[in-house]
């Protein structure tokens, strides 16, 4: 302990040194910053709210003064709420809810209107209308690998569907249903010029899933797939008749990463349950979570879609037509060099291609490493045909060590990875509840490549994360939002169903800094963030009488002065206009048993002059945006007097904007 005596020469001067270093190291005088530079009322606020210097900094960074705009839009999935939510970043203010697969009475979506009925009819699953969906992955349309701000896509995992939203009016234009599969998952991305929306299945089923095959024949007859949906940008529609599908083994396909730049033309899809376990726990089979986690590795599908497209065009690729879809069998895909696999660590999440397209980051949820596959090495290994073996379906498996560029030990429970503009990657860590930053091969700061740099705790159980522009070829960087699965104690308690928690993180500096928490409803699985100036949304429809769904003038538009009621037997067509602050006509007299067709045109040209049309006792509420024509038809099977009124506050005489629909027995 004698050394301690010598040591004991430390003096109070060392105490001084501590603060000297603390202050000077930061290059600025915190006192001046905190006390000298602020007015006394601000000091009082800071004291009263017990804010730390970091809190104050975060508050300043996220505050958007009244009347100012946010810098980014963030589109976050609403999960099983079936919608996409639109936030402004950095304020994290919620600005819009875009209902896609689920009803929304605010926007009159699915509450009687004919457009939603048509959309929902397109999206029937196994013949049945679904009025909800499970949105996992929103995706933005891209041009040359960059967000163009035109369209938003979202998948419905529960029913194997895709919704297309036009970002001029934030309305859904199309819902398509893949007739082959029950569930999808990997539809997170589009190919580099939005040529295709890529949809991968999730749970294995017979193809089509509407055909019964007992689970005992799982390996033999159940399959997965990836469907390439061509996107017609002019129409704003996915074209089902031109799709092609590659059959895949009945592993559970997880996420897909689109090739970019050098790897454009390829797609990389994760799988799990390579065990091909099937459930039957009552008969003593191990539960699925046990059975599907036995093996060490799962498979990464490596698919050359460009080649498939070319061979199809030349008629050199054999396919079967199943439920109207062109399906290329596994054997054919293998024979034509379209389908390969690499082993990947168990239960992967994320298959995230770097902005330059050279690497694919895969995270095994139970592996503390992220595994970085090299596209170049994959190409070489394919060329050399030096395979580790084949899986049960004859798909060649590339040697793990031949195609892995690096493995970075990032911590526990890595899930998803996005990239910034400076050569860094950010991985969400489910088990560690943190966002971990690591370097790619050429980090701008000159750090060692493939090295963990920082771990920032987040709360709790982060799932996906999003970096602004994080899946483009040139990410914007600057902000990162982590989409946390649990919120526990992060917000005021609101009963047993807790909100989810989004956390905004500043990634512009050398270290990440947590800025704010935003509790949200629904389960935002994934989000995309785009610069605000990339979007050019309409403030009103371009012409009066516009059909949002058809994207052109409606056949039922009604111009002022042309309002009328037309009777054709039991069909009564009401051509109505809405304008501040009256409906014309405002009286509709009907007889029980007639079918009424309301065609309502909002003839306002003013911004934000939306009118609602709420009809009592008929489960009908419409939202008619300025310029829009909305149709609704129903049979009046009950007699009575039913007021209708404008449900969107529109003027000082809003309360007076009403009418009667009477039904005589």
């Amino acid at each position, binding site marked *: *302990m*004698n*050394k*301690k*005596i010598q*040591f*004991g*020469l*430390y*003096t*109070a*001067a*060392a*105490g001084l*040194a*501590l*603060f*000297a*270093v*603390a202050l000077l190291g*930061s290059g600025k*005088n*915190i006192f001046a910053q*905190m*006390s000298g530079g602020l007015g006394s009322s601000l000091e009082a606020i800071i004291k009263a709210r*017990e*804010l*730390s*210097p*970091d809190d104050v900094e975060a508050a300043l960074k996220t505050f958007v003064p009244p009347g100012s705009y946010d810098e980014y839009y963030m589109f976050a999935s609403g999960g099983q709420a079936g919608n996409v939510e639109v936030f402004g970043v950095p304020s994290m203010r919620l600005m819009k809810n875009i209902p896609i697969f689920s009803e929304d009475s605010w926007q009159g979506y699915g509450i009687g209107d004919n457009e939603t009925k048509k959309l929902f009819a397109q999206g029937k699953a196994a013949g049945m209308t679904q009025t909800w969906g499970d949105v996992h992955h929103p995706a933005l349309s891209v041009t040359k690998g960059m967000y163009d701000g035109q369209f938003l896509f979202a998948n419905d995992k529960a029913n194997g569907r895709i919704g297309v939203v036009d970002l001029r009016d934030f309305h859904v234009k199309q819902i398509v249903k893949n007739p082959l599969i029950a569930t999808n998952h990997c539809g997170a991305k589009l190919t580099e010029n939005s040529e295709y929306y890529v949809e991968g299945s999730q749970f294995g089923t017979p193809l089509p899933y509407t055909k019964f095959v007992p689970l005992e024949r799982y390996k033999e007859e159940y399959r997965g797939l990836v469907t390439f949906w061509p996107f017609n940008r002019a129409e704003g529609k996915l074209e089902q008749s031109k799709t092609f599908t590659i059959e895949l083994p009945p592993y559970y396909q997880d996420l897909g990463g689109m090739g970019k730049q050098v790897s454009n033309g390829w797609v990389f899809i994760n799988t799990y349950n390579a065990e091909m376990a099937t459930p039957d726990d009552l008969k003593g089979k*191990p539960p699925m979570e*046990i059975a599907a*986690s*036995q*093996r*060490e*590795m799962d498979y990464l599908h490596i698919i050359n879609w460009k080649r498939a497209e070319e061979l199809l065009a030349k008629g050199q690729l054999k396919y079967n037509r199943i439920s109207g879809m062109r399906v290329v069998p596994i054997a054919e895909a293998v024979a034509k060099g379209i389908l390969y696999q690499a*082993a990947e*660590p168990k239960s992967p999440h994320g298959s995230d291609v770097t902005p330059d397209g050279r690497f694919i980051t895969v995270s095994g949820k139970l592996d*503390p*490493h992220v595994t970085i596959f090299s596209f170049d090495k994959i190409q070489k290994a394919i060329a050399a045909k030096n395979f*580790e*073996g084949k899986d049960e379906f004859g798909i060649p498996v590339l040697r*793990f*060590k031949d195609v892995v560029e690096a*493995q970075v*030990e990032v911590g*526990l429970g890595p899930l998803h990875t996005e990239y910034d503009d400076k050569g860094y990657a950010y991985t969400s860590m489910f*088990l*560690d*509840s943190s966002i971990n930053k690591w370097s790619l091969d050429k980090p701008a700061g000159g750090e060692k490549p493939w090295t*963990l740099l920082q*771990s*920032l*705790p987040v*709360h*709790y159980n982060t799932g996906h994360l999003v970096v602004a522009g994080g899946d483009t070829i040139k990410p914007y960087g600057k902000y990162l939002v982590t989409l946390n699965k649990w919120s*526990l*104690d992060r917000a005021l308690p609101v009963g047993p169903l807790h909100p989810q928690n989004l956390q905004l993180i500043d990634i512009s500096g050398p270290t990440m800094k*947590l800025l704010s928490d935003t509790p949200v409803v629904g389960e935002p699985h994934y989000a995309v963030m785009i610069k605000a100036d990339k979007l050019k949304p309409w403030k009103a429809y371009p012409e009066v009488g516009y059909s949002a769904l058809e994207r052109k003038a409606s056949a039922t538009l009604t111009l002022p002065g042309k309002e009328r009621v037309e009777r054709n037997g039991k069909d009564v067509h009401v051509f109505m206009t809405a304008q501040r602050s009256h409906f014309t006509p405002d009286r509709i007299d009907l007889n029980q048993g007639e079918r009424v067709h309301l065609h309502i045109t909002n003839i306002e040209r003013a911004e934000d002059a939306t009118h609602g049309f709420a009809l009592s006792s008929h489960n009908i509420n419409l939202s008619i945006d300025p310029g829009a024509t909305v149709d609704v038809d129903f049979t009046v099977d009950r007699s009575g007097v039913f007021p209708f009124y404008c449900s969107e506050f529109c003027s000082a005489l809003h309360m007076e904007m009403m009418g009667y629909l009477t039904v005589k027995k």
Partner: protein
Amino acid sequence: MTSFASGSPAVEPSQRRFAATLGWAAAGLLAVSLFFPYWQARLMAPQYRQGLTATMYSYKVVGDVDEIDGLNHYIGMRKLGSLARLERIVAIPAVLLLALLCGFSFWRGTYALRVAAAGGTIFFPIAFVVDMAFWMRYATKHLDPMAPLKLKPFSIPVIGSGRVAQFHSELMPLLGFYLAVLAALMTLGAFWLSRVKTPRNDLSSRRTAAVALAIAIMSTVSYPASAANSLTDLVARAAPGAVIDLPAGRYDAPLIIDKPITLRGNGLAVINGHGQGTLIKIKSPGVDLEGLVLENSGDSLLFEDSAVRVEAASAVVRGCRMSDVLFGVFLVNAPGALVESNHMSGKTIDMGRRGDLVRSWNSDRITLRKNLLEGGRDTVLWFSTGSIVESNTVRDGRYGLHFMYTNNAVVRENIFQGNSVGLYVMYSKELRIEDNRFENHRGPSGAALGLKESDSIWVSHNFFLGNRQGIYIDGSPLIEENSNTFTKNSFVYNDIGISVLPGVKGNSFFSNAFVDNLQQVSLRGGGQLRGNAWSRAGQGNFWSDYAGYGAAGAAIGSLPYRQDSAWESLMDRQPLARFFLFTPAAQAVELAGRAFPLFRPKPVLTDEFPLLAPPAGLPSAPMAPIQAGMEFPIGLLFVSGLLLWIPRLRPRRAATALTPQANIPALEASNVSKSFAGQAVLSDLDVRIEPGRSVVLWGANGAGKSTFIRCLLGLHGYEGSIRIFGRDAQSDGESARAFVGYVAQEFAGYHWTVREAMEFMADLRGVARERIAPTLARCGLSGCEGKAVPQLSGGMKQKLALAQALLADPPLLVLDEPCSSLDPKSRAEFLHILQGLKGSRTILMTSHRVEEASALADLVLWLEAGRPARLLSREEFVREVSAGRPLWVELQERGLRPRALEALAKAGFSAKLNGHGIWVEAEPGRVSPMLEALSAAGISVRDLRREIAS
């Protein structure tokens, strides 16, 4: 070796004899060099002003190794003791062997032996330097990237001075090394004298070579060269239940066992996989493998290449050695397996591509016992309820042990070392985790023990040392009622003792010891920790940074232990602050609230019943190592000492500041004793100083002056009591220190201006900035506000230190040798300022200069080793100390000494030459006239002091 060449014609016998003598002399020097240090490294930094020293012998490093390791730990440098391990083990035998060789070869050895001796001896010092340079380079280039402090890889020159952060390094060779060099030169000489070859008909070297070759061959062929390679046949012929004793030999894998048999290898049957696939697959219940050597499996993760794959119940794998295998024992649907006393080592490939040395999936009630698992990836149990994992050692892997959905299990007496994480428990419940040791888990999350959504976990008597996080708790218990209990665990030297997510509730921590973790408990990411108990039945935990106090003999502190986020916030903003942790700088934490004036630190936890000493029976001594616990660090012994010692070391602070009251002594010490390592430095010091007096603390080096100062500043624990204006310096340290302004020997300032330094102190002490200008003026620093501190002269720096100390207008000014590094002019100026302060406050200054003492003191407190302290008046002191003692004066220019003698003689002083200065007979009162006389003669004085008896 018995034959020698006596008849070599070309060498004179005398020459030969001289060579032999030289050889033996060199041998002696080499042997002696073992007793002397070879090299020394010194590190100097502001907070270690005496420096830290590491002295290297050929076989050990001594000095401030623990301290250096402690520092290096924060920048992620490896422990000194872990470097050049092999070299240090072989050093003594190698040097002795070399010495023998030297002596013998020049005496009676062959030419070849002489070549070897000369070559070896010359090579030795070179190799020492090269090896040392290599390891230094290695250590400084291989920093742990996850260390709390990030430094770029740096290099320190192996000789001469260098610089790392604020540390200055000096390296130089020492006597041992010179001895070795001398020995090398002597053997070179000896070789030259006996340089003629011995005749070739000498057989000894060839005979030696032949014997060596034979030994080598025998050692490599330790098994019969070809054994029956019919493993599959043997098994096929065996009846169920048979016991097969495999003859020693080499066998080829793969082997599939599909009936209940026992296969014994007695450690000599080697089954080799030749880098392909799995070696042994067990498909029948009741198979027993014992004493096999299993080598070289395939390396395909896809095909899960293993040493042993078990797909049936009740298998036994015991006493086997598995090396170079991807997976070791892979249990799939293999309930009741027993894996015992095996030694498994994985493939030396990247961690991410390795397999698990033990992996169990859906296999209940397995037992892992007394295995040594090294260099694999994970040891992982999936869905293996009711299992027992005990007395294993798992090191250098990734997950030392990983539980997934594995309930009702016991983890006991295992050692986990150097894995990425130690034991990670996920989605499991009802586990007992007892008596395990977790060391040095420093992966990215680096949790020694992690709990993820796991319930009813009992964690006791575990030892957590040097991990990134001792215990990491996330979502556990999932259901609050299923409380987890942590008791009697020791957390020592971890970056974080316990790391908790704020939503965690329902854990109970009591009777644990938290010793010098960088952060004892960390709340990850803000928020507040609620719903966990930090004590049970009036028993809290021991916290080494507890700043309260207890009544004599009490076990529980009288104030609660509170951890707040002040340090954390500080360290988050300025990680360099960690450098100062465990130094008295941490004292400054009590001022952190003032450093961030608007920031009220949020509480992290409160322990109402903090223990004043670690509870008895905590794990701290090494456990009996299983098979391979050989490298248990000496650090642990140190730590166990620390556990006992720390209660006394602990700084204590509390309560609030007050103003001094009249008629209370400024300083009152009674029965103050302080000893270090059994050596008393202060014994029974009693003194009482009234307010307003100026007291000089007088004594020779080592008399205890600085120790006393540090005691009253609360930097040392001590026995007895010191009260400053009535406040106890230990139990009420903070308010006691509020009365004190302190000036150290040297001012530790950084790159700021005088004004910034003053503003800093003003903010720190809560003083209006308006006071800065008058205080600077008072200390003679007017007009210096804009000057950079590093540019100030030594005297100016001390004035600045004084100004800082005076800023809060403290009633007690304490100065520790403030003038020791000043030139006489500056010293005089400084003393002049101090004289101006006399009477306005109490001054306590240490000094060993009579001039200073006599100029300033009303009273002198004379400390002498082995004698009670005496309080003398100034007159008594002067009389006693300077009677007949001359003044020793050193001039700026030595050449002026004759002129100085003349000038002094003229002024009536008796003076004579002495060494490079002059002696002057001058009573204390006449010092100034003496200096003036010299000054008038144009002679400037560099230094002067009075020779004193002490």
